[in-house]
């Protein structure tokens, strides 16, 4: 029977520490590359002439489409991290999906905003309840719900596990959503709504798009690493504060 539960030594090579070291090393590079890609991408997108069937507004595509892609990729990243949380109970996975949620919400917001700004000249209205738009909107709501959930719980590892469950349930729901919204829309949708995409895009538009997409993706990963690092620090702070409380209680009681 162990009588004394003294403070013991422990190995200080915990994973988050290594992550922090790695992050400190690669972040400047990532940031630099992101900036360069954005410069190139923006230059390319403004130098191509809007000669497409949609006129100048095609320029919106260069931000709209990458943002839309990222909004979905971010959820995938979160779902993978959620599996990491639930299956391997890896602390970095907790941090990863918690840090990704606000980023995902922001990119989704960009996709929604630029989409409606594109929609007004193209369709003549800011918003239609079209299948794709609606699913993006629902995705946005799911991000916000997850953020709210994370904020509402103060025990971080419990919050991480619980929101991982929700992320996965939501991930399963997304295909159903997509399917049902398509079905719903074929029933009710007025035929006049212009459908997105369709014609294949010329190389002239493809290149800026790809560069911008790459830039956005890198931006996402840079921010994600930074946000993860912040989250690790935040946990360190709370852990140390709690420890201070523990020790204070101890000293005084003695």
């Amino acid at each position, binding site marked *: 029977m162990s009588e004394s539960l003294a403070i013991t030594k422990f190995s200080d090579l915990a994973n988050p520490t290594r992550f922090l070291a790695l992050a400190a090393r690669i972040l400047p590079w990532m940031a630099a590359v992101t900036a360069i890609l954005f410069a190139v991408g923006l230059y390319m997108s403004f130098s191509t002439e809007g000669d497409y069937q949609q006129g100048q507004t095609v320029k919106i595509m260069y931000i709209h489409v990458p943002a839309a892609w990222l909004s979905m990729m971010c959820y995938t990243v979160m779902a993978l991290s959620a599996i990491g949380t639930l299956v391997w109970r890896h602390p970095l996975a907790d941090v990863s999906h918690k840090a990704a949620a*606000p*980023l995902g919400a*922001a990119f989704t917001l960009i996709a929604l905003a*630029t989409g409606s700004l594109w929609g007004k000249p193209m369709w003549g209205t800011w918003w239609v309840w079209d299948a794709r738009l609606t699913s993006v909107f629902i995705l946005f709501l799911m991000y916000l719900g997850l953020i709210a959930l994370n904020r509402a719980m103060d025990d971080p590892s419990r919050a991480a596990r619980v929101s991982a469950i929700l992320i996965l349930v939501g991930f399963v729901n997304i295909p159903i959503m997509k399917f049902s919204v398509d079905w719903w829309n074929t029933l009710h949708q007025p035929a006049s709504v212009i459908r997105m995409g369709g014609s294949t895009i010329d190389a002239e538009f493809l290149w800026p798009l790809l560069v911008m997409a790459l830039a956005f993706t890198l931006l996402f990963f840079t921010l994600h690493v930074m946000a993860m690092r912040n989250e690790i*620090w935040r946990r360190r702070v709370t852990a140390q504060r709690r420890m201070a409380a523990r020790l204070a209680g101890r000293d005084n009681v003695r």
Partner: protein
Amino acid sequence: MTHTFYITTAYAVTAIVTLCLIFWVWLDGRARQKELAELEASGIRRRSAQTKPEPAPGGQA
């Protein structure tokens, strides 16, 4: 037909959102580092840092 208004607003919105995001993440990091430094200053530090000296948490931003 040009739709400068929509294009500029779209780019502006994107710029604002991304910049806000970047600043938020950055400021958050700064605040956390400051808190860590304060804790360090008041003598509370990670156990690992006590037993075995370690570079200040985090390194550069």
